[in-house]
């Protein structure tokens, strides 16, 4: 039976007791783990921004800073056989699914040690091992692909669910509607995650999207929910419920994560289309890491333990940056490899 779209109480300050009904109370271990994972993404992205500024990363580089709670919360309730696909703001997803920061950073610098051996770049990395299917540069194209990943999960009967991430801008693409239709029709195990960071490049959501994005599945009978994407526990709770629903054989589910990116659309975007007050409203008042830190303080997690995580993450990120600069450029012969899979005759 289709569940009606609903809106979690995202306008209120995130308060775990009201966000979700049967949500487990977060414990210190989970808080620490989330803090560590989100901090890794934050620091990694800051470092990537710095390397970009130094000319070591070229082309397009879309940073995930501000949105860390979304992928961290969802990843925490996934199962190993699940698959992930996203668009081009993708470094956070790679780190969250356990890809090596060194390999990701070295791909950003276009070096031999990168996940695609320097041939993909920021927007094009993949890991079969981690079931991470990219990394796609065309807005919305990852959504039918994610639907196809789900089709294969169902076909093979492996009980996997595909996580198909998209931005608020991509949610308007025709192929997203096409995907919703097929996924609902065939009850495909796919979780559509709309990361609504409120801007499709420079156009705000209220200027590019009619109606609420989480309700876009209603016509197809796909339940949708709007979630505070800055609070990792709200995200985790919503994702757990959605995944239970999907794994129960009920078909797709839409989660609209209300989030915010602090940086421009890409590194070359000065983000003139929004006010400083707006940015600092999120940064200072609703930052996913600050929200979590406050909870950790209330929980009584020792400052020293947190500092130790900070140092550990700093080291990991510095190592990845060093590796990304030391790793040599690809062998010129790489120009010609991997165009086609070779078939021995």
């Amino acid at each position: 039976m289709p569940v009606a779209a609903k809106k979690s109480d995202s306008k209120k300050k995130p308060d775990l007791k009201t966000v979700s009904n049967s949500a487990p109370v977060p414990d210190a271990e989970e808080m620490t783990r989330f803090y560590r994972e989100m901090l890794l993404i934050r620091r990694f992205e800051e470092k990537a921004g710095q390397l970009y500024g130094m000319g070591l990363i070229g082309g397009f580089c879309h940073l995930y800073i501000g949105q860390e709670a979304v992928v961290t919360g969802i990843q925490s309730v996934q199962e190993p056989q699940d698959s992930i696909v996203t668009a081009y703001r993708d470094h956070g997803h790679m780190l969250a699914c356990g890809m090596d920061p060194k390999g990701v950073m070295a791909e950003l610098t276009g070096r031999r040690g990168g996940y695609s051996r320097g041939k993909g770049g920021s927007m094009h990395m993949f890991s079969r091992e981690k079931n991470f299917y990219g990394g796609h540069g065309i807005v919305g194209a990852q959504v039918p692909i994610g639907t196809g990943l789900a089709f294969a999960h169902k076909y093979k009967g492996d009980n996997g669910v595909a996580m198909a991430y998209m931005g608020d801008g991509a949610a308007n693409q025709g192929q997203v509607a096409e995907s919703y239709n097929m996924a609902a029709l065939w009850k495909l195990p796919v979780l559509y995650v709309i990361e609504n960071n409120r801007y499709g490049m420079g156009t705000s959501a209220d200027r590019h999207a009619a109606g609420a994005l989480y309700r876009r599945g209603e016509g197809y009978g796909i339940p949708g929910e709007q979630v505070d994407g800055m609070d990792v526990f709200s995200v985790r709770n919503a994702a757990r419920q959605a995944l239970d629903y999907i794994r129960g054989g009920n078909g797709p589910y839409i989660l609209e994560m209300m989030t915010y990116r602090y940086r421009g659309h890409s590194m070359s975007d000065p983000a003139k289309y929004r006010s400083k007050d707006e940015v600092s409203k999120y940064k200072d008042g609703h930052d996913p890491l600050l929200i979590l830190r406050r909870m950790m303080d209330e929980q009584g997690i020792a400052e020293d333990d947190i500092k130790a995580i900070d140092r550990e993450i700093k080291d990991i990120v510095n190592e990845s940056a060093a590796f990304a600069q030391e790793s040599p450029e690809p062998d010129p012969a790489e120009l010609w490899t991997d165009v086609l899979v070779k078939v021995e005759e």
Partner: protein
Amino acid sequence: MPVEILMPALSPTMTEGTLAKWVKSVGDKVEPGDVIAEIETDKATMEVEAVDEGTIGKILIEEGAEGVAVNTPIAVLLEEGEDESAIGNSSSASSSSSSGVSAPADEPAAPAPLAASSESEATQPQGKIVEDRDILYAQGQVIEPVPFDEALFLKNTQDQTVREALRDAMAEEMRRDETVFVMGEEVAEYQGAYKVTQGLLQEFGDKRVIDTPITEHGFAGLGVGAAFNGLRPVIEFMTMNFAMQAIDQIINSAAKTLYMAGGQMGCPIVFRGPNGAAARVGAQHSQDYASWYAHVPGLKVVAPWSAADAKGLLKAAIRDPNPVMFLENEILYGQNFAVPTDEDFTIPLGRAKIEREGKDVTIVAYSIMVGKSLEAAKKLAEEGIEAEVINLRTIRPLDRWTVLESLKKTNRIISVEEGWPFAGIGAEIAALCMEHGFDYLDAPVRRVCAADVPLPYAANLEQLALPQIDEIVHAAKDVCYKG
């Protein structure tokens, strides 16, 4: 150790900018992500954020300074416990800029020879690996394909239509491999808009033979995702004209991913359906896409003519680990040919077939134009001209070797295609003959193509727009200087 904060670039092309404003001052503590300054170029203003934690120890470039070069130290950050005296050594200060590291790709990348990355490649210069062929061609080599003894299979044949041969190819591959499935508009209950998938639903069920909504972009992308995740989709387009709705998924997702993934993840998928003109269906349902798809590295493009072609090539395409565009032809669906009955009959991709031997002129064609070229060859024979007709079978990777060997024999060559002339397959054949067969040419290469107009509906105009047998005859005589 103190850390130098460097002038960042807003974009890869920025070399200098104005340090418009310091938001932090000496003595301020900063945390990663804190805005410390603003810089400006003629295009934009951007904030500089701290990457490390520390205290601003010294400001090296004052507010308002113009023309500050990228990577110039603009301030020094002190770590916990350090004071200003540490800055004395700031020449040795660690800056994560590592100015000694040159930016990647300083030197223009010269095309490098194909790497002999494995033993087998190094010892197989004869081009046994068909996937390397276009790369070797880019480096000036035309590779002889591995011989294929088709006669072996022709001992036992049955008469079949192209339609039946395509159906049997799919059915056999579906029996052989559980991961093969067929998806498209009207492929299941309706038994195929052109009845190509007749009986598949009854044999394989609705898990493996799937009717889609009329949403080409969506189901093409779905097929790509399924292929990434271990299946072997056969995606039918009711006609290739509708695949234009899906061309982004075909090219950006299916063809390019293997390369972008550094070889980690390919896309074993077949996109198939009728291509080119049918009969009086107008401009939007009649286009030949061979040259469009053949333009794209990462795709294989196949265009069968006979029923044997259809069966052997489609089976090979389904087994191929790469994305294959399989261009059929509606008019050919009902035509009968002898088809080998052996279930192991597959035709290797990347190999042309000489359908008729001749010594006077070579006619290169694919799909429906092979039949027309054979008809033309009969007429030419009546006039004492023996034409050799090459059925390309695979458009990419192109069997250039067979074309050139024929040219060496006949010294005259024409190409025939249903597509438009501009940057068409004929243009590629002509370029090939210029680059590798110039000394063998006794006449300029001639192309027979569709008229360079959207295909008209009126019967007489349509006839005028599409290549006809007489035109082929005329062009062949032309290059024999017997016009």
